[in-house]
Each structure stands twice: as structure tokens, then as C-alpha cells.
């Protein structure tokens, strides 16, 4: 006994089923995407993909095999001229079925079946790279990344405070170069804290960044004063 076809039986008889599937395939190749019931979409997928494989082969025999299903010559031409070459480097899986929920009139589950985009060599490498990063990201705990900006911001604020103090001391002692250097350090630390605050929405981090900024301003004022007094 031959293995029965997977999926639902359609229509009132084998001939009716063949006609319905042929019409669905024709519509799919003509429009690129069609909305139909889930059962019909699931039956259409293997047929449509087999026809695209014929189109990739592209010879006269393949064209005649396709013509027994799709009767429209212009659709067959489009299939062989555009759709077949588009999937040159895609090893099957030319269609995508997306469920779109029940139909209004009879609550039948509907689906959109569409021809997928061409697979470029670039997209292929990108997909491989994404898969690799996903694998490595799974290993590393995600929490670390979330905690680090807050820590950097607080640390940067402390650095800025220390640098500001140094600048004030240097200014009091009349060391212009030392004060300038310390002020620059404070400014850099404040910038780092600000960058960290931009990454996260944590109010604590923003507070720390604001403090660092204030310290940097103080340090710059101190160095300016030192310069003035030296002149």
C-alpha cells in the first residue's frame, strides 16, 4: 500500500484536490504570497517546493513536468526565469507559513504562505556568526553586563572627586601644571561617568555622574585660579 499523503484531504475527490492544489500553486507563484487556510497551506508547501526545485533545474524536461501542474505559461515562465534562480544557493525551505488566526465567517484557522527572500552569501555568514554569538552569550551570565555601568559610574565619580581635591591642593600650592593635569583627569572621569549613565536608566548612576561632573567643574575652576594667580 502506498503511503498516504500527509495532511488533510481537500475537496470532493482526488481530481478536485489536484485542481485545488494546482490553483493554489499558480496563485502563489503569481503573487509571491497568498492567504489561505492552514490545512491548504500545509498541503501546498511540499508541492510548491518541489516545483521550485524543478525551476532550479531549469531544463525542458523540468519545464514540462511543471506544466502538468501549473497550466499558466506566463506563471511557469516567471517561475523559471525569476523564482528558480533566486533560490540558487538555498537548499530547500523556499516557503514560509505564518498563522494569522481564525477567519471571520467560519472560524477557520488562516495562514499566510509566502516565498522567502533570496539567500545571499553575506546573509548566510551573518546567520552563522549570529548563531555563534548566541552560543557564547548563553554561557556568559547576562547580569554582569547590567551591573557594570553602575559600578563604573560610581568609580568614575570617586576618581573625579579625588582629582578635584588634588587640583585644589595644587592650585593652593601654586603648581599650575599639576592643577591643570588634575583638572583634566577629573573631566575625563566625569565623562566616563556620564557615558555609563547614558547606558543605564538607574537614577543612582545618574546621580553619581552628576556629582562627578560637579567635581570636574570644581577642579577646572581651581586650576584656572591657579593659572591667574601665577600670571
Amino acid at each position, binding site marked *: 500500500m502506498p503511503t498516504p499523503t500527509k495532511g488533510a484531504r481537500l475537496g470532493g475527490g482526488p481530481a478536485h484536490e489536484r485542481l485545488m492544489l494546482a490553483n493554489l500553486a499558480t496563485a502563489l507563484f503569481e503573487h509571491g504570497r497568498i492567504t489561505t487556510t492552514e490545512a491548504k497551506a500545509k498541503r501546498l508547501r511540499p508541492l510548491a517546493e518541489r516545483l521550485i526545485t524543478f525551476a532550479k533545474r531549469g531544463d525542458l524536461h523540468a519545464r514540462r513536468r511543471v506544466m502538468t501542474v501549473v497550466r499558466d505559461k506566463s506563471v511557469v515562465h516567471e517561475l523559471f526565469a525569476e523564482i528558480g534562480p533566486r533560490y540558487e544557493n538555498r537548499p530547500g525551505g523556499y516557503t514560509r507559513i505564518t*498563522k*494569522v*488566526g481564525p477567519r471571520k465567517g467560519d472560524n477557520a484557522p488562516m495562514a*499566510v504562505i509566502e516565498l522567502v527572500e533570496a539567500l545571499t552569501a553575506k546573509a548566510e555568514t551573518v546567520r552563522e556568526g549570529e548563531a555563534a554569538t548566541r552560543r557564547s552569550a548563553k554561557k556568559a551570565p547576562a547580569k554582569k553586563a547590567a551591573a557594570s555601568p553602575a559600578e563604573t559610574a560610581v568609580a568614575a565619580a570617586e576618581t573625579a572627586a579625588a582629582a578635584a581635591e588634588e587640583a585644589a591642593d595644587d592650585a593652593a600650592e601654586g603648581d599650575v601644571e599639576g592643577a591643570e593635569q588634575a583638572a583634566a583627569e577629573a573631566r575625563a572621569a566625569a565623562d566616563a561617568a556620564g557615558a555609563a549613565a547614558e547606558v543605564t536608566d538607574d537614577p543612582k548612576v545618574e546621580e553619581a555622574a552628576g556629582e562627578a561632573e560637579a567635581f570636574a567643574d570644581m577642579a577646572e575652576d581651581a586650576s584656572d585660579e591657579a593659572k591667574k594667580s601665577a600670571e
Partner: protein
Amino acid sequence: MAVPKRKMSRSNTRSRRAQWKAVAAPLATCPRCRELKLPHVACPTCGTYNGRDVLDV
């Protein structure tokens, strides 16, 4: 042809029909618009599935 001998009582009919119950649809949250939707089905509110536009909304 075998046929029922007696009319089915109102009570029996109603007992049978008492088991007809509606089941609440399992719902998931759309990752795009946070609206409730059927799982594994394109979101009817924003028309996307898996980050792809599927429906015209």
C-alpha cells in the same frame, strides 16, 4: 432499523448539555506591542510575527 423506544427526558438532555463548556483561549503577549494575542499566531494588533510584518493593519 433500531430506533429509541422512549423520548429522552428534559432532565437527561440538560444533564448531557451541562457538560458543554467554553474553554478560555490561551493568550500570549505580543513582543512588539505588548497586546494579548494567540500564541504561534501573527499579532492582529500590530500585524507582526517573529519581528516580521505579516498583516496589513
